């Protein structure tokens, strides 16, 4: 692949040393409890999730604007239907929106037709409420059915950010199609659920493990970035506004972003820009 040197380092636009594609999953109250309807007898859990759009998102958008950073938001279409005005602000403020299911369905458990239905319904909602057609997709829960890549390509998806197995983008060939899908993998180390998320009924973590110390969490995140910067790789985040854009934790994000900007030579990009770059580099 021409975009990579022999040492595995990657060529990035403008001579940048590494790429950072900040990304946030705006799940709100979607997920199993919404899909099975149990959330309508669980206002404590519903409101915990709804905080995502109601309070966390606006403050996060302000923080990104203050730091002049672009981001990608993966948003279940149900969220757009329910809070159209709040979601429009994501687009108005220059960020990208990608697919993330209708109610955060686990794609690996869906039939091909059900996957197609979720994609088609999501596309209609994004067009109707936001006037956009996304090109990116992050799989709710990450896992794929055997035909998911083909379903995505058929739905016009150019890239996915669903897997965990690399720290650089890569191409996924689709049988019967000329163009591959770009994958921009994330890492659990940069998922705020792994350190900060906590909820009871339904329990997360399953064993109700402790909320991590904020200072240690920030140190972990900074070290992951430092490695990315040292080795010239591509970092994306699996952050959730309802988890890490809570009042005390916005300060963590702010310090992390400061640290990244001060490192210099970082290409901050929306995921679709990373995917387009990767496709162009691969073709050259």
């Amino acid at each position, binding site marked *: 692949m021409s975009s990579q040197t022999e040492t595995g380092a990657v060529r990035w636009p403008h001579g940048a040393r590494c790429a950072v594609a900040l990304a946030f999953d705006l799940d709100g109250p979607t997920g199993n409890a919404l899909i099975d309807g149990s959330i309508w007898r669980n206002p404590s859990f519903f409101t915990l999730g709804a905080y995502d759009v109601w309070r966390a998102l606006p403050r996060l958008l302000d923080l990104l604007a203050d730091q002049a950073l672009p981001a990608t938001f993966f948003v279940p279409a149900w969220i757009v239907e329910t809070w159209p005005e709040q979601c429009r602000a994501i687009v108005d403020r220059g960020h990208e929106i990608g697919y993330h299911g209708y109610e955060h369905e686990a794609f690996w458990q869906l039939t091909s037709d059900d996957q197609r239905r979720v994609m088609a319904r999501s596309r209609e909602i994004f067009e109707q409420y936001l006037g956009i057609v996304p090109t990116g997709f992050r799989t709710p829960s990450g896992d794929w059915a055997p035909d998911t890549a083909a379903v995505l390509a058929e739905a016009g998806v150019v890239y996915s950010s669903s897997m965990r197995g690399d720290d650089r983008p890569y191409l996924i060939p689709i049988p019967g199609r000329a163009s591959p899908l770009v994958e921009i993998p994330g890492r659990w180390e940069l998922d705020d659920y792994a350190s900060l998320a906590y909820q009871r009924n339904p329990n997360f973590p399953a064993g109700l493990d*402790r909320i*991590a*110390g904020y200072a240690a969490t920030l140190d972990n995140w900074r070290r992951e970035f430092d490695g990315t910067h040292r080795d010239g790789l591509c970092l994306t985040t699996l952050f959730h506004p309802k988890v890490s854009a809570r009042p005390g934790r916005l300060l963590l994000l702010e310090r992390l972003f400061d640290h990244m900007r001060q490192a210099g030579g970082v290409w901050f990009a929306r995921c679709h820009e990373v995917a387009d770059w990767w496709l162009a580099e691969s073709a050259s």
Partner: protein
Amino acid sequence: MSAEMPRWPDGARTSVVLTIDFNDIHDIVAREPATEGREKTLSVWRYGARRGVDRVLDVLDKHRLKASWFVPGRVAEEHGGLVRRIHGAGHELGSNGYRSEIFDGLDLAQQQEAFARGHAALADVIGEMPVGFRSASGNWAPGFDQTLRAAGIRWSSSWRGDDLPYFHEPRGAASLVELPLHYELEDEPYFAFNLYPPVPPGQSRIAGYRDVLNNWRQDFAGFQRYGLCYLLRLHPEMIGTTGRIGLLDELLGELRGQPDVWFATGREVADWWSATQPPNASGHPAEIFARLSGLQP
């Protein structure tokens, strides 16, 4: 869309509310029935009445702060002297069912019965009617809010979804104000522990105390930055140990040193909110929940 700055009394930037759940053994027995009859395990939670409550009272007194304590009716009956002492020190007392019942498994009539019995038992011990309520699990059946309003309850601290108070829908003539919770401002997610039966279910390590204090400090800095309502939820058997009470002492000392903090009980914040604030804005989690849950079968 930007977070607006609310106006608290006297130009304060942030409000701070201390809530304390004094459940003795009833909450853990309701949540983990395997604990029933196991005296070593229950003694972990009995420690609150025996040791923790006094330590918490002493620290609150040192910082001249009034808290809002939620006490189930059965605890008021079994620890009447202690509950009267809390009340006599000027703290607010709120209802929490009769035995910290998990409302999720009860129908509306059973929830009403548990509430009425607990409310009456607590009122009997302290000689006045509480105006605050907390649902142990955070939930209740549709229509239960009307029960609370009819009983003179003016505020709840059970739901989540905001970091400012809000109104339960519909607002109606008798406002029911919610002072929402935040897991990161509770002591239980960090400290609750029993080896067997396991609490938490994964037998997680007890959190580092220094890390918890630093988290709470940083959370406060965030709440203050945006001018919010910083509401702690503490348990005397968890924060009131000889090693942990110092965390609360240090934190409250630092908050006391801030010039623009309004320290208030839940009742005071709720009354202020009712008197000064407009209805929830459209799109508020409580409004969406009321609208969409009404559509469900």
